[in-house]
């Protein structure tokens, strides 16, 4: 399979504080890769650095083009959609307006309308609430909305920042099942950041373990699941 994302020597800073210390990782086209790690390990920072939202150094190649140093909006226009930390809902706008904004850069109106229908078919809850202010949705519904909004871009790569955060276990299961479906049916590649390691290792084919801003371990999910240190520290058995 072709390599969709290639990250080399990525470092990132918040002001003077360095948060990432030269990390390398790859993502295969059509695959799901997970970045695991504890709070503060640098997972969110990695995603933010990829889309140019924090000061970074190193090389990032997406679909054979260098994207480091480009503006966030240009990276989005290249087909990288981001479901950010905290979901990034436009809370005073309606559900439908949020979805429209996801497709802001697209010019194929018929395609956008069709995608909107598909999102509503996949998440009937959103259809019921389409005219409602997005800020009034429950956490799970907002996560559905964030994922749908990102998909409206017709991305090649979906960056997911803790999609399980703050959700009830049942809802987490539902969201992860749908993410798997989207990956299989539509071939959207995903980079998944997760604290819940067992969930992430089930969904992703490949995983990297981040510890204090550096990659500590990497490999196929099945191998990481068997690894003694991962089991003890992150899976809890």
């Amino acid at each position, binding site marked *: 399979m072709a390599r969709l994302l290639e990250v080399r020597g990525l470092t990132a800073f918040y002001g003077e504080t360095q948060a990432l210390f030269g990390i390398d990782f790859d993502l295969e086209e059509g695959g799901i890769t997970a970045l695991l790690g504890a709070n503060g390990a640098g997972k969110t920072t990695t995603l933010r650095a990829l*889309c140019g*939202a924090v000061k970074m150094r190193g090389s990032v190649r997406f679909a054979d083009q260098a994207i480091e140093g480009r*503006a*966030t*909006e240009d990276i*989005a*226009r290249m087909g990288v*959609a*981001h479901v*950010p930390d905290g979901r*990034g*809902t*436009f*809370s*005073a*706008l309606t559900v439908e*307006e949020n979805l*429209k*904004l*996801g497709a*802001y*850069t697209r010019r194929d109106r018929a395609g956008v309308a069709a995608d909107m229908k598909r999102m509503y078919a996949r998440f009937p809850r959103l259809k019921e609430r389409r005219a409602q202010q997005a800020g009034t949705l429950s956490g799970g519904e907002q996560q559905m909305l964030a994922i749908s*909004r990102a998909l409206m*871009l017709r991305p090649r790569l979906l960056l997911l920042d803790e999609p399980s955060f703050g959700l009830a276990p049942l809802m987490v299961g539902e969201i992860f099942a749908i993410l798997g479906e989207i990956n299989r049916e539509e071939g959207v590649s995903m980079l998944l950041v997760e604290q819940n390691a067992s969930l992430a290792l089930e969904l992703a084919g490949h995983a990297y373990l981040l510890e204090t801003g550096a990659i500590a371990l990497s490999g196929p999910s099945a191998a990481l699941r068997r690894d003694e240190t991962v089991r003890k520290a992150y899976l809890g058995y």
Partner: protein
Amino acid sequence: MEALIQQVVAGLANGGIYASMGLALVMIYQSTHHINFAQGEMAMFSTFIAWALLQAGWPYWGAFGATVLISFAGGLAIQRIILKPVEKAPVLTNVIVFIGLLVIFNSLAGWIFDHTIKPFPSPFPKFTGAGKLISGHDLGSIAVMLVVLALLYSFLRFTPAGLAMRAAAQNPESARLVGIRVSWMLGVGWGLSAAIGAVAGMMVAPVVYLDPNMMGGILLYGFAAALLGGIDNPWGAVIGGFIVGVLENLLGAYVIGTELKLTVALVLIVTILTIKPNGLFGKAVVTRV
């Protein structure tokens, strides 16, 4: 009774102008949280452009349309060239830039067009209908302001660019993630504010006459309007504008006399800021610590 109606209508006419100035302030405040102190002087300068075009023999509505377009382009250019470099700078830096712009436009207008007070024509017939209660210019300027508001509302509510502007004002980070060029949206916001201000300037100039200081008081009323309605709410600013206009006229005619009119705006500003800083329709801002 007749005099009362006359005062109310004249108040609504002024109110439409205050509403537009308030709206122009809110458009910029919403996306940057800055009050553009140069808004009034920009509107004054636009009005001078219209005046120059009229002197050159342009028909009124041709000059009007050209002035609105030039003002839009000018507002956009000011944001792109002067304000973009200080986008991330502290508030005080921006305030100083605004004051600088105010002084620059004021002196530039005086230098180019000199300080003598000039008459500015009204495009509306001089008729005074319904027993001399309502003047043609008052009615016309209310109508023009309502058209401006309707156009702006349609733009923000029904077009993709309008939606993108609202999104960028509300959540710039998310807006970037969906590919919206947020910084350009600020530029468009400045353009629209300048265009709205230009219309307000051309509507008020036949009443207050044209000179480099004509918008000083008007901007204060506009600020009072925006605060009364809630500084982050465009439609609040509009309603606030009409309330301020009528209030000012009635108080001026029956209570305090015309000389203290401007004081009404100032008292209103202080009162709102101390008693109800979010205005009538504004949202309380809560910051998580």
